[in-house]
């Protein structure tokens, strides 16, 4: 689905690259978990995968095509297949737009729909993410954090993308609400055949949701493998340190 070849991203004025030569493949239908601490480069890598950041060097292939080689128009058309879900939905939703407007925007940009068709699609989206049908007429601030993340997810899936980067999608939410969102993402994956790059600093969550896991440290992937295996038998000392540092509630139960 997505192939990253030797991606380097070096921000001007920084002593070391944020992403330092990452080669990675996200396979069709899988969830690749990307785990690391702050400053590991995981968010930058996720943004590079969508060409939201232009890599300093290296190539991003989407279904075999080099995104850097695409013209502006072609890139725009390809982008509809690649979406992102952010940690803080409030920061990514226009506070002055009603939810129906926010969710209609992708259709206005990428599809030529009548007003009635757009309304139907918005209603379908609200239903798909478990929001009440009357949510459309309200503004983002009228929703709870979990509901706002559902709006962010609805927008991300509006154009039936193939690939979604989920960047810490539940980190700002309470655990009881976060679990609901994780389940929603899993449902949508099954229903729409989505492929995820799931970025998180939380090991237990990454282990739960991922098919494979890549551990990132100082801009590099230090370990990659099946989710179960990576945490049960870490091959890299950093993975082991992460695992051993993660507070555990079991052993009491």
């Amino acid at each position: 689905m997505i192939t990253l070849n030797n991606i380097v991203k070096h921000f001007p004025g920084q002593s070391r690259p944020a992403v330092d030569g990452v080669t990675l493949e996200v396979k069709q239908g899988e969830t690749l978990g990307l785990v690391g601490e702050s400053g590991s480069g995981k968010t930058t890598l996720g943004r590079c995968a969508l060409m939201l950041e232009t890599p300093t060097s290296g190539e991003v292939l989407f279904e075999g095509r080099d995104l850097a080689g695409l013209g502006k128009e072609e890139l725009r058309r390809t982008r509809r297949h690649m979406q992102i879900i952010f940690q803080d939905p409030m920061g990514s939703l226009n506070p002055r737009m009603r939810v129906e407007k926010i969710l209609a925007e992708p259709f206005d940009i990428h599809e030529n729909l009548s007003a009635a068709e757009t309304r139907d699609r918005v209603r379908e989206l609200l239903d798909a993410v478990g929001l009440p049908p009357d949510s459309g007429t309200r503004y983002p601030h009228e929703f709870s954090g979990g509901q706002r993340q559902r709006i962010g997810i609805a927008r991300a899936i509006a154009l039936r993308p193939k690939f979604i980067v989920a960047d810490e999608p539940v980190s700002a939410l309470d655990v009881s609400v976060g679990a609901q969102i994780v389940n929603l993402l899993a449902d949508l994956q099954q229903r729409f055949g989505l492929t995820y790059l799931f970025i998180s600093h939380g090991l237990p969550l990454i282990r739960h949701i991922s098919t494979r896991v890549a551990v990132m440290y100082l801009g590099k992937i230090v370990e990659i493998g099946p989710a179960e295996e990576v945490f049960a038998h870490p091959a890299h000392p950093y993975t082991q340190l992460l695992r051993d540092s993660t507070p555990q509630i079991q052993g009491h139960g």
Partner: protein
Amino acid sequence: MSLLDVRNLAVTFDTPRGLVPAVRDVAFELKTGEILGLVGESGSGKSATSLALMRILDPTARISGQVIFEGRDLLALPENEMRQVRGAGLSMVFQEPMTALNPVMRIGDQITEALRAHHRISTAEARAAALDMLRSVAISEPEVRMRQYPHHLSGGMRQRVMIAMALAAPVHAKRPAVLIADEPTTALDVTIQAQILDLLKSLRDRFGLAILLITHDLGVVAETADRVAVMYAGRIVECGPLRDVFSSPAHPYTRGLLRIAPTLDGARGGKLPVIPGAAPNPSEKIPGCWFEPRCEARIPACHEGVPELAVVAENRAARCVRSHEVQAGAA
């Protein structure tokens, strides 16, 4: 005997939209050398509780109840006496040390100033005490750190400085007996978090410090606390020794929280168990149990008034009409 005895604590905010009760009927004790984990999700009232103990809530907050510390009710003290208790009897550290530290003041000067606010000591004595405390929190090159500014330090280092500042005391003077730590590791990476939690435990052992650890993270509590109190919608819904509460929770909310947390060795993939819905708004009027709408064990009796925090076993209490059945796994 308990060091800190909180009774019937309530905090209500006077807002333009009316009175909003944030904390109701909160009671707990904290003993010397004990770490009590106060757990809850956002809006549960755990932070308002901690700020009320220190009396540092904003003026729109009305606080009632009793906070007995060393025989005195802190809520009844005049402000000038309370000022002497803060930082000398009860100290507090926060989630974000960068906002609590003065960015344009050297670390050494900040700790020294805090010390001299409470003790009649010379600058030299204060500096010696500051240096000593920086060593106690295992800061590398403490002499160098004294001359540095907060932005020179990493997040974990800053939190160590905050803890040092909270607990510093001159030779022969009493150290603060209680540390209130409000989400002290939430802004930190897990590897650093583990170090700070270890530090808190070692300070507890070394100084007999009592710690009220406020967190949303059950894992943090599991690694650190001796006892736990779980808050929901402004009230404590369950409290007791960590081991007992985690192995046989007596409140459906506690049980739910324990179930939904993904682990590093449990089943993987599939659906996470969930607690449906979301916590109620504190200004809502709910006649019965506040968790009832989300509860899998609800029965008609749950509508009949807010349950009392009732004893379910030795040293354990829960606010649920079915707590015995829940604890036995029968509900």
